[in-house]
Structure formats: C-alpha cells, structure tokens
C-alpha cells in the first residue's frame, strides 16, 4: 500500500513536473517570506531580515534542489537527462558511434549465436520431466573398458535384479518396416521399445494411448505408435488414425497412438547406428524369460529412471552386484562384462562438449577484444572531454554523478550494439543451423529463448560496465585545476600505459585465437588428406529395403539368403546395362555409413580360448565385384568372383589390419576361420584397409564374406555404382531398374560417396570454419585497434617529431622510432599470447587429428602472420608521422 502510494506520488510528479516544481517553489517562497516577515515584525529592518534568513536557511535554489531530489522520481529524471545528453553527444560524433556500435554488435551477435547453439545442445535441461534422474546403462568390456549396447537377456536380468530404478526400458533400433499402400512402397525406420519406455521418459501421447504391458509379449505386439512427422507426412494428420489397421511388412498392425510434435529421443550420433529419428514404434516383446541365444547378441540401448533420491553412484554400486552375479551365472557370455551407468545428459553430448566450449571461449575472446577497442576509442574521447569533466567537477559534480553519466553513455552504446547483435544473431541462427554437422545431438533444440536473451543482456551489461568504466578508472585523479590550466592539451599520465596494456592484450588474445584456428585447420587438413581406403569420385550409393519374403520377417535369424542373392544378381545384371554405369556391387555396411557389425571367430589350428574370451572381427557381406567397384585394392590372393555363391566352397577375404593382427608375418591366404555357425571358411585374399568408422578412426580387423554364403540379413543391402559420368544423374535410371526387378522394394538414402565423406567430417569442418572465422575477425579487430592507438600516439607526439626533425632527425629514423614502439608492444603481446595459446592447445588436444597440440609450424606461422599484420597496421601512422613538415608540426596545437 505504502509502496503503491510512493510510486503513484512519484509518477504524478514525474508526469506533471512543471506543476510539482511550481508547488515546491511556492511553498518554499512562502516559508522564506514568512520567516522574513516574522523578523521584520520583531523590528529588524528588511535588508537585515533578508540576510539573516538567507544565512539561516541557505540558498533557496539549494533547498529547492534538496527537496526535488528527495523522491525516487528524481533518479529517473537524471537518468532521462543523461540519456538525452548521451544521445546528443553520440550523435555529435557519428564516426565514433558507428564504429563502436558495429564493433559491439559484432561481438555480442557472435556470442549470442554461439551461445544459442551451446545452450540448445548442452546447457538446456533434457526435454523430459526430472531429466537429472535419467541415465543410460551400457555393457562394459572389462578387458579394455569399451562401452557397448546390451544383450536382451542381460537387460532382462538387470531389470529383475537391480533396486535403484523406478523404471528400466530398452530400445532396439533395428526393425524396419515397409509400408504398402497406395503408390510406391515406403521404407519406415522403426524402433522396438519396452512398453514403459515412453512413461519412463515422461512422454504423453498427442493422440491415442501408450503401449500396455500385455502388448509387450511375443505374439501380442502388432500395435504401433507413430511419430508426429510420420503421422503428418504419410497420414495427413488425420485425427481418426488411432485404431486404423496398417499393412507393414505384409502384416497388419493397428495404430494406437501418435507421439507429440516436440518429442525427440536425445542420443549421441553413434547410438542407434545414426538413426535416431524413428518413424514408428512397436513393443519390444521380449520373451520372459528370454532365449539363451539372446545373451550373445547385443542390439539394445537401455534407458532407466533413477528412484528419487538415488544417485548414479549408488545405482552403479547396485549394478556392480548384478554384474558380478551374471558373470558367475553365465560365464560363456558375461564373464568379461560389467555395467556402466551414464547420466543421459552427459552421454549425449560427451563428444561435442570440448568443441562447443572451445568455440564459446573463442567467441568470448572476440568480445573482449571488441571491448578493448571500444574502450580505446572512449579513452581517446576522454582526453578531449577532460576539459568538460574538469569543469563539471569544478562546478560541484560528485564522482557518483560523473560515473552515472559516463556509464549511461556507454550503456546507450552497448544497448544499440546489443540490439543490433541480437537481431543479427536471430537472423543468423537459422543459417547456422543449416551448417551444423548433421550428427550434432539435440540440434532440434537450438533456438533463441529466454536463457539466450538473459545471456545477451548479461554480457551486454558486463561489456558496457567494462569498457565504460575503464577510461574513468584511469581518470579518477582528475584534478580540476590542472586540467583547466592545461586547457585539455596533452595526455594524462597513465593514459598511454593503459592504452599499451589494451593493445598488448588484444595482440595476445588474437594470437591465442589464431593458433587455435591454425591447429584446427591443420588438423582438418590432415584429416582430409587421410586416404579412406576407397574411391570417392564417381560412386553412387543407395539403400534397398527388402520386404519380408526375402528376410523371412526375421531381422536376426536365418533369412532366405538364396532369394536375396538371386535378387541381387538379377538387379546387378540390369544395372550394369544402364548407360554410364561401369560396375555395380552390393555391400551390407557402407564405409562411413554409420552402421557396422562384428562377430566372434576362431582360426583353425589355434589353441582353444577360455570361456568368455573371443577374437572379434567386423564382418562385411559383399557381392562379387565390390572391391573393384569401390576401389579397395586386393593385396594378396583374389577378391570375390560370381562363382563364390551359395553352392561353392565357403570363402572369406580379410583386410590388412586383420592379417597383421592375427597372422603377423604369415600369409593368411589358404588358412581357415569359422564363426559361431561352426562352418569353416577359407581365406582367399587380403585387401587394403578401409576407414569404416570415420576418417579419424584407425582401421580395424575386417572380414568380407560373399553375400550368398552368409545367412545374416540384419542390414539392408546398399547398392554401389561406379559411373563414368556424374553419378547423381543415374538416380532415376537406378530407381526404374529396381522397380522393374521388384516393385515392392523401396530405395532410399541415395548419396554419392563424396557426399558421404563430406557429411562424415561435418563436425570438425563446422568447428574449424567457425574458429577460423573468429580468428580472422580477431586479427581484424586487433589491427584496427593497433592502428587507432598508434595514430593517436603519433598525433600526440607531432610537436616532438617536428623538433626532432628540426634538429636533424631523418625520416627513416622517425619511422624506425614509431615502428620500434609498436614492435615492442606487439612482441610483448605475442609472448603473452604464446603462453595462452599453449593452454588452449592443451585443452583441445583431444579433438585434434594427426598433429601434436604444440605444432611448431602452426605456432610460428600464427605469430608471423600476426606480427606482419600488426606492423602493417602501425606502419601507416608511422609513415604519417615521419612525413610531417617540421614547420607545421611546431605550430601544431
């Protein structure tokens, strides 16, 4: 109530300023007049009375001012005054204002944009209720600590035997569905989940209902939940979709629900084999208890929600018990297996955290440099305004009042800069999203939100105070007398020291950024120089999805591999006839395609291993002609021929890594190996290594098997074409050929090999490009700053230069003098910068490829580039100083 009255009264006097002032005036006059009359009544003469009252009461204007400034509204008023004054002064020097505002807008805008990305990917809480209780559970290989996905039978036991979780649910990301209906068959990406998967995450359906636990049993699981985009895209967003029967893989499934629009499954790129945008979901329908063989295959990702109050450490202790139990019960599969709990929020962004925080630090440095530049500009202005400030001090302005006014000015600048920066960031964010690496987790959550706005306001405020107060700090010993006497000429001591410090700082920060960008660029260049082990030019790839009559509806078990290879032979025969196609082949796992599979194996004649210990190799079903088509060189023996089919002796080809690892100096050709299907296969050749996981990942042992000789059909065959012409021009011919062979086979993920390589280095390319941009920006900002300061310093010394020339200094000598001064600052800056760069280099060491963090060439060339640019920036003012006419210089000022 009282507050309200105070505010109301304040507002009233603000709005009716004239009236309020008149009242105060009138009241005061009345008071003083009465006092005078009183004195006259007592017999004092009029002049005496006036004098006495003035003595007693002080100046009328001062009293008025005291009353006026008592209410809160007076603060608003001075602020308003200061604002008007600030805009007036800023408008009077448009050059300064434009440069300062643009510099700040650049700094603040870049920071806002990068923060928006970091916020969306790392800082925002996960988009689920109580996200800190969500964890991921992984199997841990005790021998080498690698983490991996989970066997269904293990998941079953974990859920039964652990006590730390409210819920535990698994997701199998492999099922695919071919939607038959009107038009071409469509391939839909599916996921099979435990019935409480969505309730674990806290997701409610937009339409229909969640899975029931009785639907999570084999034979009862013909129900699906659609993703929102699938519902919109394939079913027109019709609200009567729930209850509809769909034909998927030639069977009927009924739709029970639709996920909300904003649902997204937070995961890391490598989870779910790069396919975390699922079109539809079915129940996992794990048998209870599961089959014994379900302990030997590891397709599941396990999510869990901690019981409230339980930490992930406590859960880890709990699961260690469970793991020990399983190791004892199932030594054949679980002897070497532990369980690891990882909070979901850490799991998803573990790989990008360093890169993103490096970018945030870098962009922060750019902002600091922008601050330094604006502070420098303000310093220059402060010198010319020293007279004004001294006058104000002489007239009784308090320190607080001066600071308030100077801060208002810098706040006006920073507000303009901040607004400009924010709006350009808002425009830039969609563009940035476009260039983000395709596999960045949580990219869909990147948006300008309240948190971003708060961040921008905060850094703007911080920036404004920082550069606004810097010039004031040094001028705190403003001596009114001295300044007025000097008539504003000359420089306050300490000024040039502060300027030099700013320049040194800028040079140092610029060098840190340059070295960082240099390291990233060189590392990226090294990455691109890596030979992937296959041909990237003129290769077109496309994924086929085989309907159930080929795979027998079973993703893991025994498929109709005869039927598959017959289809492949037929298709390849026709594809080879397409004009422009040189050769064609099939592979189950495309290099850099993000999918992979491995299998345990034995070599004939080697001693038997203890239970639970295996040799594991990646296995790759390929068709005849694959090595020739993709350009993988055959080093020894032979590749696959069309005669290596279902009926011929079983053969395999190994890669060089495998030959080296398991046969050392021996020739593997002619040796025999077997998988758990117990069939011996003869090694007929050795081929070159391929970077399958990524360009930066070392090749691993691989074994190639002819398509017809392996029952495994869990992956979708990818057709690879080598062409004489631009490969993308073959797309429609390929589509037509496939539908001629079987119109029920959908074709998708049509990409050239070059695109696949390009996408695979998306993340390093993004961070390198952004950091390089910041470094160039920093170099630019630093050289502008240096130019400004050197110009100012030399202009201050014009008279001195004139004298020097008059007494015989040569132009070259003067040039050397000025450049020497600049060189000193630059050298100190570079030395400090090198130290900072080493700290940065150490912290980004883990994301560099192919170079050491202290790469001498990068450090040296970054320093050199900076030194040259900085010297050039100071050369212009130096030359101006050297070419001064002594007569003019002496008359200067």
């Amino acid at each position, binding site marked *: 109530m009282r507050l309200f009255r105070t505010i109301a009264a304040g507002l009233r006097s603000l709005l009716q300023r004239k009236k309020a002032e008149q009242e*105060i005036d*009138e009241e005061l006059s009345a008071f003083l007049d009465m006092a005078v009359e009183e004195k006259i009544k007592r017999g004092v003469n009029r002049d005496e009375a006036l004098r006495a009252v003035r003595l007693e*009461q002080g100046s009328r204007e001062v009293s008025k001012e005291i009353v006026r400034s008592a209410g809160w509204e007076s603060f608003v008023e001075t602020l308003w005054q200061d604002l008007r004054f600030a805009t007036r002064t800023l408008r009077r020097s448009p050059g300064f204002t434009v440069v300062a505002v643009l510099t700040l807008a650049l700094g603040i805008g870049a920071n806002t944009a990068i923060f928006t990305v970091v916020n969306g990917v790392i800082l925002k809480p996960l988009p689920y209720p109580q996200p800190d209780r969500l964890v991921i559970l992984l199997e841990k290989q005790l021998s080498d600590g690698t983490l991996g996905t989970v066997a269904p039978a293990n998941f079953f036991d974990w859920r039964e035997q652990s006590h730390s979780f409210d819920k535990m649910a698994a997701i199998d990301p492999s099922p695919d569905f071919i939607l038959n209906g009107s038009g071409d068959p469509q391939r839909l990406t599916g996921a099979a989940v435990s019935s409480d998967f969505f309730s674990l995450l806290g997701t409610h359906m937009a339409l229909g209902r969640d899975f029931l636990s009785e639907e999570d049993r084999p034979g009862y699981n013909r129900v699906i939940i659609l993703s929102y985009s699938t519902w919109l895209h394939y079913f027109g967003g019709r609200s009567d979709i729930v209850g509809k029967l769909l034909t998927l893989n030639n069977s009927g499934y009924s739709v029970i629900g639709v996920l909300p629009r904003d649902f997204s499954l937070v995961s890391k790129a490598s989870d779910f084999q790069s396919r975390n945008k699922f079109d539809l979901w079915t129940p996992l329908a794990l048998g209870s208890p599961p089959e014994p063989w379900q302990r030997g295959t590891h397709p599941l990702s396990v999510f869990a929600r901690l019981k409230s109050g339980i930490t992930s450490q406590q859960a880890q202790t709990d699961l260690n018990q469970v793991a020990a139990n399983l190791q004892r019960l199932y030594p054949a599969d679980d002897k070497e297996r532990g369980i690891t709990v990882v909070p979901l929020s850490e799991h998803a962004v573990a790989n990008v955290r360093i890169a993103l925080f490096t970018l945030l630090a870098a962009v922060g440095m750019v902002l600091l440099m922008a601050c330094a530049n604006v502070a420098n500009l303000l310093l220059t202005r402060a010198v010319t305004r020293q007279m004004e400030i001294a006058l104000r001090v002489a007239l009784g302005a308090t320190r607080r009042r001066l600071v308030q006014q100077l801060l208002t000015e810098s706040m006006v600048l920073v507000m303009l800069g901040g607004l400009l920066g924010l709006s350009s960031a808002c425009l830039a964010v969609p563009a940035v999203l476009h260039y983000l690496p395709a596999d960045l987790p949580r990219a869909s959550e990147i948006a300008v939100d309240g948190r971003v706005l708060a961040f921008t306001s905060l850094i703007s405020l911080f920036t404004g105070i920082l550069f606004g107060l810097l010039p004031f700090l040094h001028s705190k010993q403003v001596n009114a007398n001295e300044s007025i006497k000097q008539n504003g000429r000359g420089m306050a001591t300490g000024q040039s020291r502060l300027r030099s410090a700013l320049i040194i700082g800028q040079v140092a920060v610029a060098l840190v950024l340059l070295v960082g960008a240099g390291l990233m660029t060189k590392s990226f260049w090294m990455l691109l120089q890596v030979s992937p082990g296959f041909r990237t030019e003129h290769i077109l790839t496309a994924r086929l999805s085989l309907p159930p009559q080929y795979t027998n509806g079973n993703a893991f078990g025994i498929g109709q591999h005869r039927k598959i290879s017959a289809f492949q032979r037929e298709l390849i025969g026709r594809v080879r006839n397409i004009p422009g196609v040189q050769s064609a082949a099939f592979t189950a796992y495309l290099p850099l395609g993000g999918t992979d599979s491995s299998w345990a194996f034995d070599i004939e004649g080697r001693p038997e291993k203890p239970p639970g210990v295996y040799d594991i190799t990646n296995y790759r079903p390929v068709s005849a002609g694959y090595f020739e088509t993709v350009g993988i060189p055959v080093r020894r023996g032979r590749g696959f021929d069309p005669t290596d089919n279902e009926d011929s002796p079983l053969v395999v080809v190994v890669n060089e890594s495998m030959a080296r690892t398991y046969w050392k100096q021996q020739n593997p050709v002619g040796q025999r190996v077997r998988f758990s299907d117990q069939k011996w296969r003869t090694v007929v050749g050795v081929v070159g290594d391929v970077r399958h996981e990524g360009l930066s990942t070392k090749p691993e042992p691989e074994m190639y098997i002819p398509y017809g000789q392996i029952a495994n059909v869990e992956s979708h065959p990818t057709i690879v074409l080598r062409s004489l012409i631009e490969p993308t021009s073959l797309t429609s011919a390929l589509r037509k050929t496939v539908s001629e062979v079987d119109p029920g086979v959908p074709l998708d993920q049509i990409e050239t090999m070059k695109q696949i390589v390009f996408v695979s280095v998306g993340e390093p390319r993004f961070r390198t490009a952004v950091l390089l941009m910041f470094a160039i920006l920093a170099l630019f900002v630093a050289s502008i700053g240096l130019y400004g300061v050197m110009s100012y310093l030399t202009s201050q010394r014009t008279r001195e230069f004139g004298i020097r020339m008059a007494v015989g200094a040569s132009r070259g000598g003067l040039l050397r003098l000025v450049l020497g001064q600049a060189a000193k600052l630059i050298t100190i800056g570079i030395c400090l910068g090198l130290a900072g760069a080493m700290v940065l280099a150490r912290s980004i060491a883990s994301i560099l490829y192919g170079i050491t963090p202290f790469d001498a060439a990068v450090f040296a060339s970054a320093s050199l580039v900076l030194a040259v640019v900085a010297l050039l920036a100071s050369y212009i003012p130096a030359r101006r100083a050297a070419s001064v006419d002594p007569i003019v210089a002496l008359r200067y000022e």
Partner: protein
Amino acid sequence: MPLDCREVGSVSEKTGELVQGTLDMLILKTLALESMHGYGIAVRIEQMSKGVFKVNAGSLFVGLQRLQRAGLIRSEWKESENNRRAKYYSLTALGRKRLDSEARDWGRQVAAIARILEAS
C-alpha cells in the same frame, strides 16, 4: 542564537537514520494539535524545543514529502492568517497511530538510555 543549536534534519552521515526518524516524529507531534503550514511547523518545533532545534526549510519539506507519501499526513492549499496562499498539513488517522507508537517507543528508548548512563 544559542551556541548549542542543532539543525534537525541536516543530512549527517553518522546519525542520518536517527535524525531523519526524529524529525518525522517531531513533525507528526506538531501536527497533532492542528493543521499547519511549513513555516508554522518550523517555528513551532523551534519554540517547543526552546531554540535547541532549528529546522532547515529543505530538510523540512523533504520530511513532509516523505510523510505524505507514506500516507501519514495530508495537505491542502489554504489562505494563511495574513492572506498568503500556503500549503497546510494535517495528520491522517494512520499518522496519529504512528505518532502514538513512535512516542511510546521513543519514551522507552530514552528511559533505557538514561538508565544505562546513570548506572555508570
């Protein structure tokens, strides 16, 4: 002019709080009997304190403004005894209550301080 005179309400860094509160209380007390204009209040305080307190116009009007915003007094323009327009202040019900409570508190404090000073 007595030498020991003190300006009530002058902004003193050390005793600002106390002085401010005291002036407010004195104004309220003065207005308890009848409504008054600013000069009247100043004179009355000076008289009642037998010249110990002299009230400065600036401080007085700041105090009046503060009290009015707090709803303890109200004001209206009236003709003064010698035909001059002046703003007359009077207590509100809230102000009367406040005066009572402050006077009580003040009495307690003074008594307590006096006891302490006598004890030594």
